C-alpha cells in the first residue's frame, strides 16, 4: 500500500458487468422528434478531476482558517452505528451548536464528514460520492475503532478495515462506541488542526487521486459511476 502507486489500471475494471440500465448508452426520442444519443456516464456526471488548491499563507489565510474552524458544518449522513451518538450532540445534553458545529443535510454545504463507524462496501461507494461532492476545504472525522483497523468487523466480508486507504482522514476517534464527549474532543482536535493550517487532506486526496481511486475500485466492483464524478 505505497502511496506512490499513482497509476491507474483501467483495464482491471469490468465496468460493463455491473452497469446499471439507466447508465447505459442509449438513444432517446426528444420532444421535437429528433433522436439524441445519450451517454449518461459522460453527460450526467461532472468529468473534472479534483484539483489541488494550495493553501495560501499569511494573516488573511489564518483568519479564514479560524473562521473555517469555528464553523464546522457536518454532513448528516450516518454511515454506521456511530450515528446513534450524533443526536445527543444536537440535543440539550451536549449541544454541539455552541461550539460552532452544525448539521447540514446536503454534501454541497458540508465541510466535515463524520464517518460514524464501519463502512460496508455499499455505503463506502455513497460515502466517497458524498465526500467528492463536498466543497474544499473539507475534513473527515473517523469515529470509532472500525475505521482504524476494522474493529469488530475485521473479518467481515462486507466492511472495510482501514478507512485511510479509501478516504483521507484528518482525525480518528477510538471507541466502540465513543461517548459524545469523545466526538466533541474530536471536533476540538479538528479545530486545532484547521487553525494550525494542517488540515489539508482534501488536497492530499486530489494529489493522490489515482491511488485512492485504485483502492476504491478494488473493492467496489459495481462502480457504476464515471471515474471523475467529483
Amino acid at each position, binding site marked *: 500500500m505505497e502511496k506512490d502507486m499513482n497509476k491507474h489500471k483501467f483495464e482491471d475494471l469490468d465496468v460493463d458487468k455491473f452497469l446499471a440500465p439507466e447508465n447505459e448508452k442509449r438513444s432517446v426520442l426528444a420532444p421535437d422528434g429528433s433522436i439524441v444519443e445519450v451517454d449518461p456516464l459522460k453527460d450526467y456526471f461532472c468529468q473534472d478531476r479534483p484539483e489541488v488548491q494550495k493553501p495560501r499563507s499569511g494573516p488573511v489565510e489564518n483568519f479564514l482558517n479560524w473562521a473555517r474552524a469555528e464553523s464546522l458544518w457536518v454532513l448528516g449522513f450516518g454511515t454506521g452505528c456511530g450515528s446513534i451518538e450524533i443526536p445527543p450532540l444536537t440535543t440539550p445534553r451536549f449541544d454541539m451548536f455552541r461550539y460552532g458545529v452544525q448539521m447540514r443535510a446536503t454534501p454541497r454545504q458540508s465541510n466535515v464528514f463524520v464517518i460514524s463507524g464501519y463502512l460496508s462496501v455499499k455505503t463506502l461507494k455513497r460515502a466517497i460520492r458524498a465526500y467528492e461532492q463536498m466543497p474544499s476545504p473539507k475534513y473527515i472525522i473517523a469515529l470509532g*475503532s472500525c475505521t482504524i483497523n476494522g474493529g469488530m468487523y475485521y473479518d467481515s466480508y462486507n466492511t472495510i478495515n482501514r478507512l485511510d486507504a479509501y478516504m483521507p482522514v484528518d482525525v480518528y476517534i477510538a*471507541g466502540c462506541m465513543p461517548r459524545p464527549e469523545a466526538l466533541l474532543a474530536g471536533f476540538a482536535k479538528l479545530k486545532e488542526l484547521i487553525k494550525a493550517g494542517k488540515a489539508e487532506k482534501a488536497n492530499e486526496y486530489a494529489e493522490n487521486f489515482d491511488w485512492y481511486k485504485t483502492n476504491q475500485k478494488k473493492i467496489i466492483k459495481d462502480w457504476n459511476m464515471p471515474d471523475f464524478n467529483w
Partner: protein
Amino acid sequence: MNIKDVLSPFTAWKRVARDPVTVKDPFNDRPGADRYRGFHKNDVEACIGCGTCEDICENEAIDLVPFKDPISGDSGLRPSIDYGRCCWCALCVDVCTTNSLTLSNEYTWVATDPDEFIFTPGVDKKDWDENEKGWKKPEGNYEFYGLKRVEMEHLHPEERSDSFIEMVKGYSKEQAQKEADRCVECGICTATCPAHMGIPEYIKAIRNDDIEEGLRVLYETNPLPEICGRICTHKCESVCSIGHKGDPLSIRWLKRYIADQVPSDKYKDILDTNEIENNDKKIAIIGAGPSGLTAAHYLVKMGYSVTIFEQFEAAGGMMRYGIPEYRLPYESIDKDINYILSLGVDIKYNTRIGADITLDQLGKDFDAVFSGTGLHLGRSTGIPGSDNEHVYYSTDYLRKITAGEEIEVAESIVVIGGGNVAMDITRSLARMQKVKYGKANIIATSLEKEDVMPADREEVVEAREEGAIINPGWAPQSIEIKDGVPTGLHVVECNSLFDETGRFNPQCSMDVKEFWPGVQIIESIGQGMDLSYISEEFKENMAFSPRGRVETNDYFQTGVKWFFMGGDIIEGPDVIHGIANGHKAAIGIDNFIQGIDFKAAK
C-alpha cells in the same frame, strides 16, 4: 379543528425561561461512571502473560508482546491492545486469571495517526494508569471458568490409616471432564514442568473425551504416566494460571485419569509401537529408575538395543522402593514398566555395576552408557545419639517395607525431616503402628515452619488425618539414649533457615525447648548418592561441582563422551526431573551416536 389543539402546543414556551440543562464543560464535568468500560489498564507485575485475554477477544485486538524474559509461572509477555479492533466488551477483564487487567473510566482518545492506537497497558504510560474507577471483574459468583477444584475422592482416614490400599480413588469421567473444563489452555505450566509435558494438549484431549490422543500426548514426553499421575511433585500446578484466584487445576490427577483409562494391552496400538525398526547400536542403562526407564523407552523407540542393569530384583528404583504402596500401588508401576519392557528393552536384574560388571566393560560392550543410579544412601543429622542402632534412615526402612522384610516398629516413634520422604515414612509407620498397637504414636518434625515445609501440603494434612503428629519448626539437638535405647528427641525452636545472603544458616531460640519421647528415631533429611561404581581413573575424566555433584552438559553427557548421567544424581530429587533427564539424555545419546554435534561437556 379544536381551539385547544391550537393553543396547547404553546405551553412549550414556558420552558424558555429555564436554565439550559447542557453539560457546561463536557470534557471535565462528566467523567465515566464507576463501572465505565474505558481504556485498558494492566498491573504488569501481577500479570503473568497467560494470554486468556487474547483467546477470548473476538476481535483479535489483543497481542501478547514481550515485556521481560520469561520465568517459571510468567511467560514474560504482556497484552498489547489494538484500539482499531477493541470493542470495549471487557470480556478480557472478566476472563483475566490474575485480575490484573482492568478498564479505566477514561474514554477520549483522539489522534491524527491511525497507527497510534496500539499500546501495551501498564508498559506504555498513559494518563489513565492511575485512574481508580472503571470496569473490574464483577464481584460474586461471576466466573468464566470453575475456580473450585473437583474434589478428588480419598479413602476415609479411618479406612486407610491401617492399610496400604491406594488411598486416592481417581477421577471418574464426569469429574475429569469437569476438571479439564477449567483449563484455560495458557500453556504456562509446560515451561515449569521439567519434562515440558504438553499439559494443555492432554487436558484438551480429556475434554474432547479422546483418551487415545491424550495418551499419545503423554508419551511424547513422559513414558511413566501411571506413576507420574500419582506421585509427581506437580510443579506445574504451582504456576497454574487459574491458581492465582482459585484452585489450580489437578493436572496430576488428570494425567492419572488418562493413564488409568487405557488398558495396558491397548498401549501398543494407540501409541503405534507394534513395529519398531531396529538398528545395530547398543545402549546400556544403569538403574531401572525413572530416568533410566525413560531413557530406555525413547532409545528403544529410536531403534537402539537397550539393556538395563538393575541391582534389585524388580525395576522401578525409588518409585518402587522409596514410595509407599498406598500412594503408588505396584500394579501401576508394573503397568508402565511392563509397557517399556515390552518394546524390547532387555533388563538384567540383580546386577550391580562395579560389583558384577565394571563400568569400563560396559563402555566397551555398548555404544553408550546412561546411568541413573539415583540417591539411595540415607543422610544423618549427626546430632549426639544419632549413631545409635535404633536410629534409622528412612530410605532403608521404605525399601524394606517394599521388599516385605521384617522391620522394627516401635510403639512411639520420632521422625526427623519435613520432606515428602519423611511424610512417607511417617505415614507408613503410622499404619503399621495402627496394625500392631491399635493406634498411631508418631511425631514428625522439621526445621522449616509449617508454611515453608518442603513436603506437599496434602501429605501433611493427610498424615494428620491418619493420626500422625506433624510438628514443624524445630531444630533437633540431641537424641536422649537410655540403656542403649533412645527415649526421645530434644529440640529447640527454629526461627529462620537462611540468612540475608540466602545461605543455609538456621537461627534457633535455644530457650524454647521441647522433648519428644520416642523409642525409635527415623532420620529423613535427604539422601546421598553412591558413585562407588565409578572408578577413580574414570572420575578423573569427569567434571565435578564443588559440592561433589557430577557436571554434565545440557544433554547429560559427562566428560567421558559415551557416558551419560541423569536423574536424581544430577537434578532433583523427584520423578519428573528423572523423566526429563532420561528423555533428554536419550536425545543426547542419539545425537552422540549419530555424530551430530552438540555442545560438549562443560
